[in-house]
């Protein structure tokens, strides 16, 4: 009894010590961090002169700054010669105390003006507080200094001559789309606890027509019911944008689409700022790059690209590699072909000669039994579109296998149990027999 009590006490003591150790670890790991970056380095490989490269980075806020920070991005002195070739979008972001991370993109462009060879782009997010330090002394001279902590990002790339080989990004390098992306990004600003507006828009839009349309989604992700929302588009350099500026009511959980009809492009690159306002409080804003390739409008071709297969089956909840065969059905070569699978993948295929085929591979995972993914192919000469239909494999054989395994398990258990009972009963009978024999013998002995 004493032993048992002693064992219990030792166990309790160990458990308390273990719990204390775990708590200590948790406190230590949550203690102090600064403004970090992921990834800190990307090797973009080779970029052909005239092409562009899009990379995504993330600023991680592991430090509980009690005041909001305005993050802008600054090239280091050594990288300042790339100033005209780099666009950050959004160009600045506000990091509120509750924001744990912010995504931003870096576009390398105008590469035709960059010398061939290796380039190393290094830049830093510059965090500046949006509130002044309030000092409690007004006498004489008092100084205060904010300690702003930041980390540097680095992007290595080679400029290759046209017609050169475009290298694939290595597998160990963090994923980054290698070319202009139409992938949708979400900029989300939480103004108050209840107000939360998300603007979903293409971070990069490549113009293929004289008149283009793009759809923007405004979503109310907070609990506040907006009654008078408006949207405003600011363009730089100026181009025409026609849209309905009145969104009106947008209740909690609702979303609405706004179509922007764009025309009158005057530059290779335009910058569009999207501003949503509720008329009372602050607004939510985001930005989009509009790229206008310098090609003759008459030369724009459509539906040159076809891909196969268009219907595929994958396993549920499993990341599956999809291989698409992409062919050029037109009689002219297509340059700078980019495949964009909505919200899934962006791949640069490069040039595609007439009647030639290229294999593109990407990963996909889904839980729905059937889903359609719009696929766009954008190239210097035009654009093509299609739909990839993905359904899940039937789980019939899996169900059969599970049932079989369970039945085998149960049968095994029953068999073992029966054998055990049978042996037990035989043993009991044998015991009875022995006991009977012994009694008879005694009687005989008595008779004798």
């Amino acid at each position: 009894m004493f032993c048992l009590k002693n064992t219990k006490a030792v166990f309790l003591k160990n458990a308390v010590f273990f719990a204390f150790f775990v708590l200590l670890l948790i406190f230590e790991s949550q203690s102090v961090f600064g403004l970090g970056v992921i990834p800190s380095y990307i090797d973009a490989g080779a970029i052909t002169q005239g092409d562009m490269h899009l990379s995504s980075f993330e600023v991680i806020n592991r430090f509980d700054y009690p005041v909001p920070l305005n993050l802008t991005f600054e090239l280091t002195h050594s990288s300042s010669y790339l100033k005209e070739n780099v666009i950050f979008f959004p160009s600045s972001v506000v990091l509120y105390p509750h924001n744990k991370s912010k995504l931003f993109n870096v576009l390398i462009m105008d590469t035709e003006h960059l010398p061939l060879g290796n380039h190393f782009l290094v830049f830093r997010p510059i965090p500046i507080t949006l509130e002044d330090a309030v000092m409690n002394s007004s006498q004489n001279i008092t100084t205060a200094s904010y300690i702003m902590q930041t980390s540097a990002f680095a992007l290595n790339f080679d400029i290759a001559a046209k017609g050169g080989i475009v290298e694939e990004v290595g597998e160990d390098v963090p994923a980054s789309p290698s070319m202009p992306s139409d992938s949708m990004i979400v900029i989300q600003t939480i103004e108050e606890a209840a107000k939360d507006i998300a603007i979903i828009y293409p971070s990069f839009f490549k113009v293929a027509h004289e008149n283009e349309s793009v759809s923007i989604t405004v979503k109310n992700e907070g609990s506040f019911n907006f009654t008078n929302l408006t949207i405003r588009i600011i363009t730089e350099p100026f181009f025409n944008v026609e849209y309905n500026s009145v969104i009106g009511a947008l209740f909690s959980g609702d979303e609405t689409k706004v179509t922007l009809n764009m025309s009158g492009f005057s530059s290779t690159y335009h910058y569009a700022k999207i501003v949503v306002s509720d008329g009372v409080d602050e607004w939510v804003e985001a930005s989009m790059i509009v790229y206008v390739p310098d090609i003759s409008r008459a030369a724009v071709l459509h539906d040159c690209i076809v891909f196969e297969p268009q219907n595929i089956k994958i396993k549920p909840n499993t990341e599956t590699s999809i291989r698409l065969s992409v062919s050029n059905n037109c009689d002219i070569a297509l340059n700078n072909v980019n495949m964009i699978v909505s919200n899934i993948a962006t791949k640069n295929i490069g040039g595609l000669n007439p009647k030639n085929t290229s294999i593109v591979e990407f990963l996909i995972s889904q839980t729905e039994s059937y889903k359609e993914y719009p696929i766009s192919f954008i190239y210097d000469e035009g654009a093509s579109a299609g739909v990839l239909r993905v359904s899940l494999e039937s789980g019939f054989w899996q169900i059969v296998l599970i049932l079989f395994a369970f039945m085998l398990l149960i049968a095994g258990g029953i068999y073992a149990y029966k054998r055990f009972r049978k042996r037990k009963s035989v043993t009991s009978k044998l015991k009875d027999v022995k006991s009977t024999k012994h009694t008879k013998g005694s009687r005989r002995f008595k008779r004798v």
Partner: protein
Amino acid sequence: MDEKRKLRETQHAIALFVVLCMLLLFLSGTGFITSPLGYVVNTTISVTIAPELNHIFYEEELMNPSRDYVFQIGPITTDGLWHSYNSTYGGVFAGYDIGTYSDNNTNLFKLRNTGTKTIDVIIASSDFDNGMIGDGNYIDVNQFGGDFQIYIPGTGWRNVSDNNNRDEDGIKNNEELCIANNLVVGAEVSGFDVRIRAWPGTNHGNYTAHIMVSVFESDTIDICTGVGEYVLP
């Protein structure tokens, strides 16, 4: 003899049960089996830890560094003498940590690598200004004979570079000061201090600046060749 047989058969039953369980576990472990209701019984879980560049520069011996990202020294005199924040390494006058965000502890500063990469750390600051642009009143931060210095343990006092030309003096130093070189993951450097001085003619008032502590991944951007050196980032 019967006891032995009974024991053997029980062992066989247990072995059969274990083998069946292992078979089930193996099939589910490969992600091959999903339950009829669509729930995943078990799939292979892959975890990727993203390498992160991170650090913290904060006051020592404190539990709440979020209160110490802004610090205050003052009031200071205008006789050109140094006022040190902690005064461990000298400075005619000790500083006072008395700001709104301060914790009233005037401790030395500590640098710690909290990321997953070896880092180089550099420092620079804007000039200390009273918020009135154009009145000519500021405390100069400059790599060459400025009025704001940092004490680097094992190296001594060094001028902090000016990283901003959008201020009163319009001067910016291209180089920044290395305060740590190849600081490995989890490593700490303790004992940093800062000091400041103002000259006669400087108006009374509150002067603020932004100190920028930046980290670079040593493996890809080996920016520092030594602690206490000025480098071009």
